[in-house]
Structure formats: structure tokens, C-alpha cells
């Protein structure tokens, strides 16, 4: 698969938010973008999603080939689950909206709640609808911006199981940002560490842990030490 982004730079005034960032991901792979607050994770994801324009660099895919799931559920609380999915399917110009919506309801386990207004659903279910909207056009790449940040542990588990199954079953490449490094270690095939707008590590979680000598330390401790030793 070609790189999703090559040499991307983004400035906000005098501040450089991203500097020469390149991202690549393989079909079926889960790539976690981790880093401290203000590292540029959401900016990078917004550029990959086509919401922000980079000042320099190239994007490997047009926005319509990328599914995007924002951090907050970007769906309408006054519409039912089915109406939300059908609306976005129509806007995405999906060939058979009804069939796609039915399949998505089945895959997300929301068929029984299909006619409930979204405002009446739990945070976990709303996030599932949010992700389902991102998957309606069956994109080869799916972007998730901190998808589990507002969920309880049980909901997080169900969410990642769904995303993981989808990635491996359909070959969808998933790029997600998270503050929860343990979640990244558990579900990501690869992590990309971003700090002050620069990529300072790309590799598997095991490789990131191996970069630090103390084998007894947990992944989060290793990650914090990794950042501190590099001045972040």
C-alpha cells in the first residue's frame, strides 16, 4: 500500500505543528499514533482525513477513500441509528444504501436499536454508530481519533474487538490516536510516536519497549522514559 502521507508539514502562524511527517500503513494493520499532549496527533489525523490542508508534503489518498471517525460522535442525536446511517450512506453516494445500512447494523450489533433515536443510546453505542458511519463506504483506510476516550472498560473492549475484527476480516488499514498507551500496546500492530510535531519512533510495541533497557518496566513506563530521554 502506498504511504498515506509523505513529508507533511503544518504551521499555525509561527508555530510548527507537524514537521516532515510520513505515515504508511498496510491493509489489515492497526497503527497507533501516540505521544504527549500537543504532539500533533489530531492535526496529523485531520490532515489525513482531508479536513486540514498541509503546508508541505503529499497525501497518498484522496479524502473519499479514507473513512474518518472523529473523537466526538459526529452524528445527529434527533435521528435514529438507521436514519443516521442512511443519511451518510446517501451523502457518500453508496450504491445500495439500504443494503449497506442493514449490513452495518448487523456488523455493529445495533440492529435491535436501529429505530432508537441516537440521543437515547449509551456513549459506547453512539461511538459504534460513529465508527459505522466511517465504514459505510468500505474505505481501505480508517482513521479513528481517540475512539475510546469516553468509554468505560467494557465498552472499550467491545469497540476494539469490533475494529480489530473488521481490520482483519476486510483488510481495512486502521490508523488511530490514543492517550492510552496500554491500549496501543494491546491492539496496535505498530506504533508511531509523535512529539513536538516530529516522528521520533515507528515500530511494533515490542520494539518500543526493547528500546528501553529495563525489561521489568511496563509499556507505559517504558514509553514515558523513552520520551524523557529524548527531551520530551
Amino acid at each position: 500500500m502506498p504511504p498515506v502521507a509523505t513529508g507533511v508539514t503544518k504551521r499555525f502562524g509561527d508555530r510548527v505543528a507537524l514537521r516532515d511527517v510520513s505515515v504508511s500503513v498496510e491493509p489489515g494493520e492497526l497503527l497507533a499514533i501516540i505521544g504527549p499532549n500537543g504532539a500533533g496527533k489530531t492535526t496529523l489525523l485531520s490532515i489525513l482525513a482531508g479536513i486540514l490542508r498541509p503546508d508541505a508534503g503529499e497525501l497518498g489518498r484522496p479524502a473519499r477513500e479514507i473513512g474518518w471517525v472523529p473523537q466526538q460522535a459526529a452524528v445527529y442525536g434527533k435521528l435514529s441509528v438507521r436514519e443516521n446511517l442512511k443519511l451518510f450512506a446517501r451523502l457518500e453516494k453508496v450504491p445500495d444504501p439500504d443494503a449497506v445500512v442493514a449490513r452495518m447494523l448487523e456488523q455493529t450489533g445495533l440492529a435491535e436499536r436501529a429505530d432508537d433515536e441516537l440521543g437515547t443510546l449509551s456513549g459506547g453505542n453512539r461511538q459504534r454508530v460513529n465508527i459505522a458511519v466511517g465504514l459505510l463506504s468500505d474505505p481501505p483506510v480508517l482513521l479513528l481519533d481517540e475512539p475510546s476516550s469516553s468509554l468505560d472498560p467494557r465498552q472499550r473492549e467491545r469497540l476494539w474487538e469490533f475494529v480489530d475484527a473488521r481490520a482483519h476480516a476486510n483488510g481495512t488499514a486502521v490508523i488511530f490516536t490514543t492517550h492510552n498507551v496500554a491500549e496501543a500496546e494491546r491492539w496496535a500492530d505498530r506504533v508511531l510516536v509523535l512529539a513536538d510535531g516530529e516522528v521520533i519512533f515507528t515500530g511494533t510495541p515490542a520494539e518500543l519497549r526493547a528500546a528501553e533497557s529495563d525489561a521489568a518496566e511496563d509499556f507505559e513506563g517504558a514509553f514515558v522514559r523513552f520520551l524523557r530521554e529524548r527531551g520530551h
Partner: protein
Amino acid sequence: MRWLLLKDLQILRRSKLLLALLVIYPIAIALLIGIALSRGPDKPKVAFLNAVPIGQTVTNIGGEDVDFARYADQFFEAIDPVRVKTRAQAIEKVKDGEALAALIIPADTVDRLNGGLGQAQVEVLYNGDAIKQSFVESTIDAELAKANAALSAKIRDVAVTDLRVLTEGGRITTPLGSEDLLGLERAKALLEQALDELPADLPARSGLEQVDDFANQALIGLRFATPALNAVSEPVTVKKTVLSGQRTALDDFAVVLAVAVSLLFIAVLLASGVLALEREEQAYGRLVRGLVSKSGLLAEKVLLAAVCSGIVALLMLCGIGALTGVDWARFGQWLAALAAGALGCSALGVAIGAVAREVRAASLLGLLLALPLAFLALVPSGSVSSGLYDVIRVVNGAFPFKPTLQALDAAVNGADPGLLVSVLHLLGLALGFGALARLALRRF
């Protein structure tokens, strides 16, 4: 755009409270304005003390009985009298707020009018409420002016009659009784006849000739007296001419004002709200990353608000029109004015929504802007300084309410500056505010 439009209608249909507020609130305001403009205020309550003794309200002017109680009755057509028996009671009624003012007619009023004691004087007491005082003061002043005018007309008529009798002769009535007067003209004729018959060298002739000259001068002077008396009783009369434009009756103007206010409120609040809602629901980012263009999104919101506000305004116009009897032959022009007004106001709404970014902030901003706009559009020229009025004109021209009002007035009542000018103005404003909204979406 079609799917977004249907989505917004679906959301509106389910937001029953919002829908009810959007429709009922502006209609209630519009109807209140309409009623306030088309109906005069209720009669103010005024404590009334007539201290003139019963049976002494009639006086005789030039032989004609004039009952001053009749003039008091005329007062009661404009005020709601609260009759009291003493001055203290009158003061108490005003202090308690039971009456806005007190009108006291002193016991010597008729005597003074009869001329014995100088000018008659009535007493008016007000409470301290500035607005109410102004209202009741102007009412009482107006009624007093009417009474004064009626009395002076009566006195003028008597004076003119007496002058005629003095000139031509006839019966005259005074407080001392009725007398037959010879009249200056007949006196002069008799005098001239006597002078013709007297010898030219008679010494008394010189004195009689002076009396004849005096009678002649008096007749000339009295011929000017009648028009002079008319002029004094009504020094200025008014000839009314409308120089430009078609004057719209207040009732008819109230109809278009009520409709325009509704249109403004619904269009602005709806357009700003539905646009800001896209951001609040976090859906904006998802929509504009290829599903719909930013301009398309704005156009959809303008169309939605314009259609909804236009329909409500049309129903209002038809409803009020059915009651007040408007010209239904102009229905096509109504539609054109409503469409242009709805587009202009909706474009203003999306600009507000794009700037405010949150539904509550957008609604607040919409209200804060719509209320003064409606107020400024009603400020008449001449009521403020010319510089300030020029500023108001610029503000009115820069926002769509006044042009909407003018378009509706032209469409419904055929008023100037004409429908086409107002419609073009509104379409220009719609494009301008649309561009402003598009610019504001950069930081949406």
C-alpha cells in the same frame, strides 16, 4: 443537498418545543405589534371633579344658552372618568394609582367664562410615571384644546351675529334684555336724508356731517371685523398633501409589519440555529470533507429557513388579510416579496450562525440583532437629528428587515419605493451575507 434538507426537516419535526417556539413566539410578537399599532390605547382613567354647583353650568352667550356640562361630556369620550366629590379625593385617587390624573373644574369656572372674573382655569394633577403622565397629559391637552376651540367658535358666532345687527340693525340680546337696534347702515341713511333736507348754512350741519363720517368709517371697519374674528378663532388651517409615495394606512402597515417581524425572527433564528447545530453535533467536519461543499451547506440552510419562514409569513398574511380585507389580486407580488425577504433574512441568519458557532450563542445573537433592526426600521425621518437618521438609514439598508418591510408594503399596499427595487436590494443582501457566512466558515 436534498438529503441534508430532508434531514433538517426531520430534526425540526422532532424538536417540537423548538418548532413551537420558532413559530408561536414571532407570531405572538407580530400580532402584538400589529394590534398595538392598529388599535388606539384604552381610555386613561382620570379622576374627575366638577365643583360647579348643579344648575349653574348653563350660561347665556349672546342670548343663547350654553351648557358647559356638554363640554365635560366630550371629555369622557377620550377619558374614563372616576368621579369624585372633593379635591382631596381626587388627589388620593391619583396617589393610589387608581387614576392616572385628576381633572378638577373649579366652582367659579362658569362665572369666569361669563367674563366677570377673567380667564377660566381647570386644574390637572398627574402622578409621577413619566410614560403614563405623557400619555394622559397629551390626551387632556387635546381635549382641552377641542373644548377651547368649540367655546371660541361659539363666542365668535355670537360676536359675528352682534356685529351684523350693529351694522344692519335687528334684535340684540344682552344680560339687560332684548333691544331692537337701528343699525349703522340705516342710521347713516337717515342721517344723509336729514342732511339733504337741511339748509346748507345751518350751523348744526357741521356736527351732523362729522357723525355721518364716523358712521361711514365704522361701517368700513366693521366689514373687516367678521373675517378678522374667523381668523382669530382658527388662525391656522391645515391643507394636507402627500408629496411622494403612496401613503399606507396605519392598519395596512401594521399587517405588513407583523408579517415582516415574523419572517425576520423565524428566518434568522432557524438559519443560524440549524447551521450552528451542525457544529454542535460534530457533523460539520464529516460533512465538508467531501460529502457536501461549504457553499452547498450554506445554501441548504438558507433554503430551509427561507421556505419555513416564507410559509409561516404567507399563512399569517393570508390569515390577517382575510380579516382585514387586503387586495388578493396582488397575491403574486406577495409571493415575490416574501421569497426575497425570506432569502435575505435567512442569509443574515446563516452569517450569524457561522460567526456564533453554537446554537445558544447564535440564538442570542440573532435576537440581539433582530430586535433593534425591527425598532430602527420604524424610526420616522424628522424624529431624530438628520445625522443620526442618516446613520439609521445606512443600518437599515445594510440589513434585510427594512427592505423586507418595504417589499411587503409595496406588494400588499402598493407603496413606494416599489417591489422591484426592494427585491433587488434583498437579493443583493442575501449574496452579501452568504459571502460573509462563507468567510466565517473558515474558522467554524
